[in-house]
């Protein structure tokens, strides 16, 4: 393999990693604050992608409008399931929430296939050719995808670290009982969390659909790489989730040049095993998160 191929694979990996950092951030926040692995994030992404299709066919072909409405609709969906399911389960063992989140994933996907069927859809956007720098190719649309993801990530990081509300969120993540005792309204934090999870998954799903095609299994197939990256970064660490996802994206794309693309998922699994074996708290995780 020459360096041009490797560079191209790395670029692809960075874009993919940035994109998937959105749901990965959602997963790690849920892990840190609500303390369970949220298996429905993949299908929230699918929901976002299908919402974008719906917007494009009935309202406007604008990609920005599709992205905004997809995020909003998915945020609403996530809030609904928080209010109905996860709120009541928050006092029980995390396993209950985990199993329920699988149920949520199936319910969301089945509603999508009931109305949209099994066939694929394409998010409409003009096809453009890549800029070619003597073999190294950069796709303008990839730049938009990456820029959108970076903006959204930056907004959440700003909120977490520079606002009073962000401090409250982190306090709940550190110790919910203590946070509640010191007057932080945990309910409010949870609602915000649900909105962020929904909006990020919706946006991520829409961008994924924009890059590829929209199918009912779009999000579910991404669950494992996302979880592997979150654990790699350190459960509950937002910086870790983003770095872990990008690192994972790059290594996945480069590795598939050598071992064959089919082994991408196997790679996710091996990374998972190695991290858990060598450093279960991940790159940035606190020991406290490892229960």
């Amino acid at each position, binding site marked *: 393999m020459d360096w041009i191929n490797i560079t191209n694979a790395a670029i692809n990996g960075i874009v993919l990693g940035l994109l998937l950092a959105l749901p990965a951030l959602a997963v790690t926040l849920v892990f840190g604050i609500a303390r369970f*692995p949220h298996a429905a994030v993949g299908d929230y992404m699918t929901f976002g992608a299908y919402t974008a299709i719906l917007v494009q066919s009935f309202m406007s072909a604008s990609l920005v409008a599709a992205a905004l409405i997809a995020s909003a609709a998915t945020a609403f969906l996530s809030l609904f399931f928080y209010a109905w399911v996860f709120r009541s389960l928050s006092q029980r063992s995390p*396993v209950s929430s*985990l199993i329920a989140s699988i149920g949520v994933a199936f319910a969301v*996907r089945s509603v999508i296939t009931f109305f949209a069927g099994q066939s694929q859809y394409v998010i409409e956007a003009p096809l453009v050719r890549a800029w070619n720098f003597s073999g190294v190719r950069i796709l303008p649309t990839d730049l938009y995808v990456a820029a959108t993801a970076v903006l959204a990530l930056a907004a959440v990081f700003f909120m977490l670290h520079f606002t009073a509300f962000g401090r409250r969120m982190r306090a709940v993540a550190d110790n919910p009982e203590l946070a509640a005792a010191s007057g932080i309204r945990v309910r409010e934090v949870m609602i915000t969390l649900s909105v962020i999870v929904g909006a990020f998954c919706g946006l991520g799903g829409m961008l994924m659909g924009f890059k590829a095609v929209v199918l009912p299994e779009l999000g579910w197939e991404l669950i494992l790489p996302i979880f592997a990256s979150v654990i790699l970064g350190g459960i509950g660490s937002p910086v870790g989730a983003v770095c872990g996802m990008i690192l994972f994206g790059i290594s996945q794309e480069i590795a598939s040049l050598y071992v064959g693309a089919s082994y991408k998922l196997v790679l996710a699994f091996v990374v998972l095993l190695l991290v858990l074996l060598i450093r279960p708290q991940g790159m940035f995780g606190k020991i406290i998160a490892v229960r």
Partner: protein
Amino acid sequence: MEFYLIAISISVLIYMLMASGLSLQYGFTGLVNFGYVGFFAIGAYTSGLLSLQGVPLPVSFLAAMLLAGALAYPLGIITLRLGGDYLAIITLGFSETVRILLMKEDWLTRGVHGVPGLPRVFDDWAGVSSGDLTLLLLLLVVNIAVFALIAYLVRSPFGRIIASIRDNEVAVRALGKNPAAFKTRSLMLGSALAGLAGAFQAHYVTFIAPEQFVPLITFYVWIAIIVGGPNRILGIVVGTIILLTFLEGSRFMRDFVGGVSEVQLASVRFFIIGMALICTILYRPNGLFPDKFSKGK
């Protein structure tokens, strides 16, 4: 008609075997295995491929159980010292990895082409149909034996320890026992049962291919044990029967209810599976037949 009933009953009993194993892991020990189908696949391929090499079926079935159980060991020791969530993620990854290896390593598994022409369990017994009846009886005996084993284990010192691990791990640790070791044993035993179920499935369907071992199967089994009640044998039996009645019953719905497309019917089926998971966890956390002594989890 009776042959169809036999076919359904065989499916029920194969699922019941899986449900028993998963119930041992989740219901009795509290282990969340989201990759159960991976062990089922290992069992199916182990026995299937060995039998094609001329290994007699009793030996290949045993090998299926041993390999499926043995593969659970490393997963157990890596994750079980950490939290339960890790096991869930790692096992989900395991089952997908198994499926991809089955697809890609075609020198061993014929890859996506699948392996056709596996021997039936009772092939020489006067025709396909009566062979199926004998298989049904064998499965019945195996299931009863597994139930007896579970009943024995639960009352044994081992059973009391795994139950207390499930209910209060810290206390067990304080007593100087190593919970991870007990959990790993339970994980291996449950996985071996999945391997056995896989071997039965392989030699019943006579054709195995990687696409038969998708994660959805795992969650079918989860439905069975959660709906019925994960830590009671009656729960396992009733849960499995409810699951298969539902899966097969929706097939008949089309004959009676016109106007539903199959795509929509499949979606409805999937929706009910999802809703059953949510609603049971929310409203009947211990299933239809809760263990009288267990507290809500």
